[in-house]
């Protein structure tokens, strides 16, 4: 019963092939047995999972089951989960047992899903490799010498290793799409505001967005049906009708207009990957799509703009971690300032401190216009590029990442090199657009992701485009050796 998609597991539960408790136990055992290789979970919530699974089975016998009832999933450890440690991958919150549930957690609980545990992540979602986690890096199940990507690396590794059929993630600059690409998964970063941010520990508020990571577009759509929607607790959540994301998955793609931004196929893209992306586009042409080259001239500027805006917001968002009301506090502070500085100096890791300092500097007196305001202006230019192109085409396609998963330690010494990893994903967050990554081939035994970008609130279209590809190809069904 393991190694199945959510849709398949839902069918199995429905037809009584297995119960939710049996399914949950099977996953819990597998996590216990296998996760030392991947370090994909920070906390396994065995007790909670079994309570939820028992309740789900009762719901089912009472004839009240819905599509998510009894399905086990994992949550990125950035979503506050009542009664469960919620660490955001940081020493700062290692002792933080959340007193409340994030809206996303509440939605999955209400839908009858079972929480297997909380997955590993880059500290406060700052990273592209999972190496900044206080709990040690997670590893890529396709090759454990390689990173699973980040920051939702634990979620990606867990699904790829068959330790969870699906998981939640968050994406501030590519943190769902890049690990999905590295681990041969389907990941969706929804339009900014589509999924509530309440209870999702903030990194950069105007960029953060929660979303699903799964094995197929269909599963991704099922999860979106749970996660999407207006939340009165989040001022930035969109007041807009939520469609049934599974309804139009099979819609034919004849006449679909695809744009290929020439800037996404520039020198930084590994040529073998370029070949795979072009092959995937050919596949779409076979499905009836029309392809044309488009231009997003400000793509390269998304890196500097992002690395001002995100750290600036983060420097302020992370000020609440001061050792006063929750979380880590240093030993024997000699005075207030000592408490602040040591609590934060000891509680945060290097990359987090680095970004807080960049953000603090960018917002400090005399620099605001040159950095923050400038970055927000560039952000407008980037958005305008997309708006223009998306008035001509239905979706934009390109690579999710410039290279496949790199090795652990390969990019940790130079943060700038690590930041360049996100060159194809950052611009969407700046513009607030939805984007997906789906498997489209292998490069030296490592998965390659195709990125599909759509217009605002066009998640349904993206899922349809992804699903049709997955009906026509089998890249997404490939599993790491030994699974």
């Amino acid at each position, binding site marked *: 019963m393991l190694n199945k998609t959510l849709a398949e597991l839902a069918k199995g539960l429905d037809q009584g092939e297995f119960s939710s408790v049996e399914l949950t136990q099977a996953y819990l055992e597998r996590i216990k047995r296998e996760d030392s290789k991947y370090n994909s979970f920070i906390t396994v919530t065995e007790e909670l999972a079994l309570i939820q699974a028992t309740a789900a089975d009762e719901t089912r016998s009472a004839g009240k089951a819905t599509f998510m009832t009894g399905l086990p999933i994992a949550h990125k450890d950035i*979503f*506050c989960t009542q009664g469960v440690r*919620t660490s*955001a991958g940081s020493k700062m*919150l290692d002792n*933080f047992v*959340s*007193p*409340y549930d*994030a809206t996303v957690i509440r939605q999955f609980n209400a839908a009858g899903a079972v929480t297997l545990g909380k997955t590993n992540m880059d500290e406060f979602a700052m990273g592209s490799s999972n190496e900044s986690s206080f709990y040690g890096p997670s590893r890529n199940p396709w090759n454990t010498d390689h990173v699973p990507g980040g920051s939702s690396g634990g979620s990606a590794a867990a699904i790829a290793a068959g330790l969870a059929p699906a998981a939640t993630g968050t994406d501030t600059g590519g943190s769902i799409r890049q690990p999905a690409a590295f681990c041969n998964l389907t990941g969706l970063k929804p339009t900014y505001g589509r999924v509530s*941010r*309440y*209870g*999702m*520990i*903030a990194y*950069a*508020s*105007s960029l953060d967005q929660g979303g699903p990571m799964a094995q197929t577009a269909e599963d991704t759509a099922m999860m979106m049906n749970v996660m999407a929607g207006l939340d*009165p*607790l*989040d*001022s*930035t959540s969109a007041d807009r009708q939520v469609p049934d994301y599974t309804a139009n998955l099979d819609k034919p793609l004849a006449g679909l207009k695809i744009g290929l931004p020439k800037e996404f196929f520039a020198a930084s893209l590994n040529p073998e990957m370029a070949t795979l992306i072009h092959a995937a586009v050919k596949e779409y042409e076979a499905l009836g799509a029309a392809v044309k080259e488009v231009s997003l001239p400000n793509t390269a500027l998304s890196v500097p703009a992002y690395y001002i805006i995100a750290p*600036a*917001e983060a*420097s*302020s968002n*992370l*000020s*609440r*971690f*001061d050792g*006063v*009301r*929750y*979380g880590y506090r240093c030993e024997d502070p000699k005075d*207030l300032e000592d408490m*602040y500085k040591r609590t934060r100096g000891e509680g945060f890791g290097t990359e987090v401190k680095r970004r807080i300092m960049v953000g*603090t500097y960018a*917002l*400090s*007196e005399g620099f*605001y216009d040159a950095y*923050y305001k400038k970055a927000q202006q560039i952000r407008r230019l980037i958005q305008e590029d997309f708006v223009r192109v998306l008035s001509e085409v239905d979706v934009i396609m390109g690579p999710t990442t410039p290279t496949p998963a790199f090795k652990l330690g390969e990019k940790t010494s130079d943060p700038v090199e690590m930041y360049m990893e996100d060159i194809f994903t950052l611009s969407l967050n700046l513009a607030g657009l939805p984007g997906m990554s789906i498997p489209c081939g292998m490069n030296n035994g490592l998965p390659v992701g195709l990125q599909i970008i759509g217009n605002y609130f066009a998640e349904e279209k993206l899922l349809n485009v992804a699903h049709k590809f997955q009906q026509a190809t089998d890249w997404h069904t490939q599993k790491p050796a030994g699974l």
Partner: protein
Amino acid sequence: MEWETVIGLEIHAQLATNTKIFSGASTAFGAEANTQACAVDLALPGTLPVFNESALRMAVMFGTAIDAEIGKVSVFDRKNYFYPDLPKGYQTSQLFYPIVGEGHIDIELEDGSTKRVGVTRAHLEEDAGKSLHEEFASQTGIDLNRAGTPLLEIVSEPDMRSAEEAVAYVKKIHALVTNLGICDGNMAEGSFRCDCNVSVRYKGEELGNRTETKNINSFRFIEKAIKGEVERQIDILEDGGRITQETRLYDADKDETRSMRSKEEANDYRYFPCPDLLPIVIDDEYIDAIRKALPELPDVRRTRFVDTYQLSAYDAGVLSAYKPLSDFFETVATISTDAKLSVNWVMGELSKHLNQHDTDIKNSPVSAQQLGGLLQRIKDNTISGNIAKKVFEAMWNEGGSADEIIEAKGLKQVTDTGAIEKIVDEVIANNQKQVDQYTAAEPDKRGKMIGFFMGQVMKASGGKANPGQVQGMMKQKLDALC
């Protein structure tokens, strides 16, 4: 050369909302520590703000009341600094696009003239919690009940030239916000606080360096703090010194301002637009609806009091400054049908009692209905003014209506002519010496002498005899003896 004082004020008025500016926790004053600090107020990881509609409405009410430009698009910014009673490590405020733009307010000066003071802006922000330094030996306790209470920060132009003008301005704003019902105005509880920016210069010269004295919470302290600060600055400048631009605290016990442990580093608040909140957009319709629904403003009411009730400018000014007081007065005046009598009682006996017991009019043990009823009994001659004071005293201490007290204590005025005549005759019979003096006196001196006989009659009647009747009858009888 003559010194000139330049004063600008920042007033923080807590808005009288039920809940916090960004959370659904109560703002009630005086609750046990941290019982009104919810997950959002504690800035738990992942929590987010949602803006309170009443805070917006109240800010716009203030803006329309001072004829200000209203920001149709206003934006919340973050002011970043670390302090234990600031849970998020930033205060959500409005720097670049405030809800209320330029407006003005007229103050009355002692010489009777009027001066217009500019209001630069008024913006919404959240209050911080409270740090309690006294309860623990080496620790400070943090109570976050107040954290997130909505504040309207009202910033004036540096238009005031004396402590008296500053106080007149603060009183005017206080009257306005309490009249609008957007702030309870309780200065002792910190609902209405004032920061004073003070500098001095030779008349006509450039502005000098200023100091900011923080969080002064009474009108009297504002006056004293400014006067002390002006004196201090002039002393320094006349000794050839320079004024350090700094934040100071007013110490009411010592009646002096002192430097707040001068933070060697300049503050760098790193303001930027709050990404968790979206721009607040309002239209003319919203603003007009609020403008139309504004209650009567103090200035309008003061004029009306003079016109309708023929009150003196002073009485009208005092009454109209505080809505609970003016409402009280109007109720009393309506019931008693005598505005003059009402104002005398409200400003006299009632105010005296309120002051003695340090009580606000809102908590007065004697209600406007009770006082109005009492004044009716004076008007219809049931009791005299002096007896009324006794009734009021009883009302204050024991409650009850005027009629109940008069009845229970038997204070009803005697108007029975026969009964009064009897006492008058007795007094004349028992005071032959004074009667002789009266009859011997020149007729124009007799008027004054009648007071003695009146007093005797009132005494004999226990104060209950109707003074008018007594006077008439006594005069008639004495004159008959002449």
